[in-house]
């Protein structure tokens, strides 16, 4: 069977821990598993219309699709950008991102502010014991506003979440 060059192979969008990579170390051939390669950092962008922001406490919005079977999402950071609108959001302006099935005021992974529509905000892991909650395997991530819904404000939000996937052992 003739050998295929890389460019002739079937493309795959998936990455698994059991993938094998060929490397040469000090002149010797080795294989390295996908689990032992640098992690791939993914990003997902979601637009949340202003009307949905005003209900974002009661109705969280999905911002990262469910993790594939046997994997868990590790969120690194997120960015909040504001689109259109003329008035800042008032009251309840802490936005949290966490696993959809468990997200609450106390269970979340990264948080940021939606108080100032003129300033893009970064969501990051809060400090302190109990401040950061683990992600749940095979779950998605959702964005939620803490405490209650914002009372006013009219900007759409563009949420970018950077994350990577880890396989359960």
């Amino acid at each position, binding site marked *: 069977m003739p050998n295929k060059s890389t460019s002739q192979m079937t493309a795959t969008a998936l990455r698994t821990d059991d993938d094998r990579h060929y*490397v040469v170390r000090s002149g010797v051939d080795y294989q390295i598993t996908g689990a*032992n390669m640098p992690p791939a950092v993914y990003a997902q962008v979601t637009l949340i219309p202003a009307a949905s922001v005003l209900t974002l406490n009661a109705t969280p919005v999905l911002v990262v699709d469910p993790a594939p079977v046997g994997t868990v999402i590790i969120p690194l950071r997120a960015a909040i950008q504001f689109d259109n609108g003329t008035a800042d959001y008032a009251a309840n302006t802490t936005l949290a991102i966490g696993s959809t099935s468990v997200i609450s005021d106390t269970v979340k992974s990264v948080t940021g502010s939606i108080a100032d529509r003129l300033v893009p905000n970064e969501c990051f892991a809060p400090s302190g014991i109990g401040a950061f909650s683990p992600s749940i395997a095979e779950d998605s991530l959702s964005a939620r506003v803490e405490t209650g819904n914002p009372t006013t404000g009219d900007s759409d939000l563009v949420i970018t979440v950077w994350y990577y996937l880890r396989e359960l052992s």
Partner: protein
Amino acid sequence: MQSVRIEDLPDGGMYEPDDRFPIQRNESGVWNDYQTSFTRYYGDVIRVKFNWDGSGAMIETITCPVGKLLVMLMADVVFTPGPAPTSGLIQMTILQGGNSNSAIAELYDTALGQGSLFYLNSETSADPWRDLDQDIQISTPGGGFSGSSVVSVIYALIDPI
């Protein structure tokens, strides 16, 4: 000539910065062959992993070479549940140089798989990282948890100015 498949080769374990691997690049419609290194292709960082079976305390050390600064960039842990979860809390700690400040990851011993970043225990103390010659130590309290965990740490070594 008998072809050798990748899975036939010896396991090289974790990648090393100077490992070489082939790539192909499309240049003006022609696929050309190249080799590159992890440092050049993925960046100048190192990744290590530690397994913890939950049966006893874990203490693992990342040694900082003398004269270097070891800077932790990111760390995470994945917990895979075992058959008899205890609902207990697993609190993992990362210390550098015995500093009172640290990073932590908290997982619950449940029937659900989980993943977590290590995040700062406190942001009120002095900078907890980037001390010359200082190792990183990852530890857990005693065992008794039903499940296994894999800790992944990504760090860089730099020369002090």
